[in-house]
């Protein structure tokens, strides 16, 4: 039994390594900038969704406000860069720490809420964040921040002539989020989180610190999402409140995980690999503003998934009974 388990974990790790190598090689064949762009976004959202999945999938605290952490990552990095000349690499770390701290600060009151009340609170808080940044003059208010371009540089993490560095960073972020999940899955925290999701009262009776489990999940989740936000800011080199803290980001983190299989190791990656190219392509095909058609695509997918496969696409692959958790 133990051998089975160890073998399964090793298998997951090997599959991930193989996929990562394949992904790393794609730029050799894919020269088209539009397609590269889609690949970058797919990898980024896979990483973001994987991070979202830690709090909402494993620990069961459904957040529809993760855009807040994404935006905080972006703003922290760019404010530090444009106002104080701090390199984005440090800004990225700072953004992660700021987000993790804010996530815990918000968790303090909100983790006492259950179910739908918690979800509503996360939405409201993210909207408040959005409004605050809209009105914060020093941070550019509604005008946002344009990142000064000084030519291609790894030090400043900005590139005009090629998208490849962004591609590899997005890949690294995705791998990091996956690996953190893989590692935590078989740790005390991973078990605590799943116990808290399934039955907090029983978890408590077994010595699980329910409140701190949620806080830990929130911190890890927010940190990784903020790193994603920092990356995105560098990638698009212009940020304003809507473009890094809008509600659509919260959705785009939640949907891949829900589509692929919420609370599973592979769900977010699978979901992102399907959803993001699909939405980007519809946006591409059906015109610039795009806001309408891609939302119709999400909506339809979610309705279909929740009707036909409530545990996500991965449940198609899980052997019944034997393996337990869908993976």
């Amino acid at each position, binding site marked *: *039994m*133990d051998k*089975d*388990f160890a073998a399964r974990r090793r298998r997951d790790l090997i599959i991930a390594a193989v996929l990562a190598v394949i992904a790393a090689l794609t730029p050799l064949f894919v020269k088209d900038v539009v397609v590269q762009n889609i690949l970058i976004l797919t990898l980024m959202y896979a990483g973001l969704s994987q991070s979202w999945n830690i709090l909402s999938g494993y620990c069961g605290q459904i957040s529809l406000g993760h855009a807040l952490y994404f935006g905080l990552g972006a703003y922290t990095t760019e404010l530090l860069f444009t106002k104080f000349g701090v390199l984005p690499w440090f800004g990225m770390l700072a953004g992660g720490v700021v987000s993790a701290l804010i996530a815990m600060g918000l968790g303090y009151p909100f983790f006492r809420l259950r179910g739908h009340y918690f979800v509503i609170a996360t939405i409201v808080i993210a909207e408040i964040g959005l409004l605050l940044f809209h009105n914060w003059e020093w941070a550019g208010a509604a005008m946002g921040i344009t990142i000064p371009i000084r030519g291609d540089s790894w030090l400043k993490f900005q590139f005009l002539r090629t998208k490849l560095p962004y591609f590899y960073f997005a890949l690294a972020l995705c791998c990091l989020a996956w690996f953190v999940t893989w590692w935590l899955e*078989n*740790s*005390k925290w991973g*078990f*605590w989180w*799943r*116990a808290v*999701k*399934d*039955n907090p*009262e*029983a*978890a*408590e*009776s*077994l*010595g*699980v*610190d*329910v409140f701190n489990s949620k806080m830990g999940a929130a911190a890890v989740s927010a940190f990784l999402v903020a790193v994603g936000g920092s990356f995105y800011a560098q990638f698009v080199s212009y940020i304003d409140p809507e473009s890094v803290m809008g509600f659509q980001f919260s959705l785009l983190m939640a949907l891949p995980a829900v589509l692929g299989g919420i*609370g599973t190791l592979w769900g977010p990656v699978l979901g992102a690999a399907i959803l993001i190219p699909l939405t980007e392509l519809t946006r591409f095909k059906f015109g610039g503003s795009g806001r309408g058609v891609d939302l119709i695509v999400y909506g339809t997918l979610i309705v279909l998934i929740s009707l036909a496969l409530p545990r996500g696409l991965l449940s198609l692959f899980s052997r019944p*009974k*034997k*393996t*337990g*958790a869908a993976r």
Partner: protein
Amino acid sequence: MTALLETRGVWQRFGGLVANSDVSISVGRGEIVGLIGPNGAGKSTLFNLIAGVLPPTQGSILFDGEDVTHMPAAERCQRGVGRTFQVVKSFETMTVIDNVIVGALVRNTVMREARRKAHEVLEFTGLAARADVLASDLVPAEKRRLEVARALATEPKLLLLDEVLTGLTPTEAQTGVALVRKVRDAGITVLMVEHVMEIVMPLVDRAIVLDLGKVLVEGKPADVVRDPKVISAYLGDRHAVGA
């Protein structure tokens, strides 16, 4: 020898309802004690007070020489109080072994050891063959057993069993009884709430009968079942006269 568990003048009121009034009981080390009584006697309330689900309105609870009256459930578990739930609360999306690992993590910080401990407990409770099945796929009797396994994995000094034998077929109940004996033989004190007198009476060393929130009688099971007060509490005064 000091008692492992002691409640001193415990009261619990829910609004106007007095669920426990002035309950003082004690459970000695190595005992199997049955907490019985008719419906609404306050057994479950007392049980939850001991497990730490909520603090009593008044009175104090001592465990292993320490005042735990206001200690939350998770900390009591670390001190050595294990419990099961009357309405089973399995971690439904997790496998049987994973359910038990959650309990084992209380005393084993290394995953490998927690996993080994969990396997050991599954072996002990006769669930080893079901280790990799999802908890949601277990039959009710197995779910009860999983509750016990999970609690045992926390390596408790005191195991609180909330109606683990109720609603089982006679054969299942007999296996359950055997398991409780095995638990006690492993050196764990057992306090069990039960409904079904004929199953629980041969099993326990001592029975405490609650009625209307108060301790009615306590003593050896054979004496308790003959006590007119107990008979009248269960069956009404008419039946007690002849006893």
